[in-house]
């Protein structure tokens, strides 16, 4: 029951992109086509779950016992950056097909604030390891859901005649606002 609450809350009620504003750069950057949005979602899910597990272990077995909690930001971002590199190297060797699909998105993920944000939030919310994994997976799904929905909307948006000033990013932002408004309908469920 507890896990269901975490999942529903992370995907719908507190959606990372639309309610917490994490990972807006890829949300606006790679949402021009549904296919690239799906690829990005795959890469983010993979790295987010891995990064949350590793940063959880670092926080509880290195930073906390030695009382060096102030090193959190520095150590987490280094771990995420090296993890992304590692995943890239391993994928290249083990599964070239998957690397082809996700490869271009991997370098972008280091500066995706959703990854670092979710890692820090798991620590703040005091989850245990299993809850942390569920939370990060659900957050990644929420990110993907918002990204794919938004990409679908943008594909249609290109076909509409709009005033010059509002075409492009402003129109995309306003559509994102409407999407966020739709997601607000979920608030109060949990």
């Amino acid at each position, binding site marked *: 029951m507890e896990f269901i609450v975490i999942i529903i809350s992370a995907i719908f009620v507190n959606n990372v992109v639309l309610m917490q*504003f994490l990972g*807006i*750069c890829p949300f606006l950057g790679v949402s021009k086509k549904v296919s690239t949005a799906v690829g990005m979602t795959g890469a983010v899910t993979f790295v987010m779950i891995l990064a949350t597990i590793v940063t959880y272990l670092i926080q509880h077995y290195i930073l906390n016992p030695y009382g060096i909690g102030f090193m959190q930001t520095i150590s987490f*971002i280094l771990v995420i950056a090296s993890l992304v590199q590692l995943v890239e190297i391993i994928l290249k060797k083990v599964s070239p097909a998957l690397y082809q699909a996700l490869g271009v998105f991997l370098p972008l993920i280091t500066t995706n*604030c959703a990854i670092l944000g979710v890692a820090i939030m798991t620590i703040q919310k005091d989850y245990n390891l299993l809850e942390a994994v569920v939370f990060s997976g659900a957050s990644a799904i929420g990110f993907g859901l918002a990204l794919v929905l938004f990409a679908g909307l943008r594909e249609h948006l290109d076909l509409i005649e709009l005033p010059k*000033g509002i075409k492009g*990013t402003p129109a995309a*932002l306003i559509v994102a606002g409407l999407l966020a408004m739709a997601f607000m309908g979920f608030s109060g469920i949990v």
Partner: protein
Amino acid sequence: MTNKDIFLRGFFKENAVFTLLLGMCPTLGVTSSAINGLGMGLATTFVLIMSNLVISLVSSFIPDKVKIPSFIVIIASFVTMVDLLMAGYVPALHEQLGVFIPLIVVNCVVLGRAEAFASKNKMVPSIIDGISMGLGFAMALTMLGAIREFFGSGKMFGVTLFNETYGMLVFVLAPGAFIALGYLIAFINRVRKA
């Protein structure tokens, strides 16, 4: 390029938020009021100036292969400093900005300027670039925060201008951030063309 050109370019012509569309997460996430936007903007400005300063001094000693990781470490150290200073001196604001303070590390503006400007230029121009980019970012955040605060709760910098019950709550909530920024960028595009 003179120092004045560098300043004007960062502050207005290539404004991080309005033109380059960098650093969107804090732009949307913390601008529910003008004070929050200003606080976030100034915190980012501090990190930007200090990281530009240090990176312009040390970048010639850093091998190309580890350039980005070393930049990230330098930036992360200054972010940690800001985080602790704000927790000590302005705890209320620190509480409001929450997770977005450590997230300055992954703000594309900071790493972008380190890579594109500070690593290739001398100390003084790099500091000016940091100041102008940072203040441009702070201006954008304060503007968006003021607009959202005004329409959402009838206040400006915490001063009540009209009764809150007439405010449109949506501007303070998440969707309002996207919509207000969308129209603000559209308006600025229009002004620039004219």
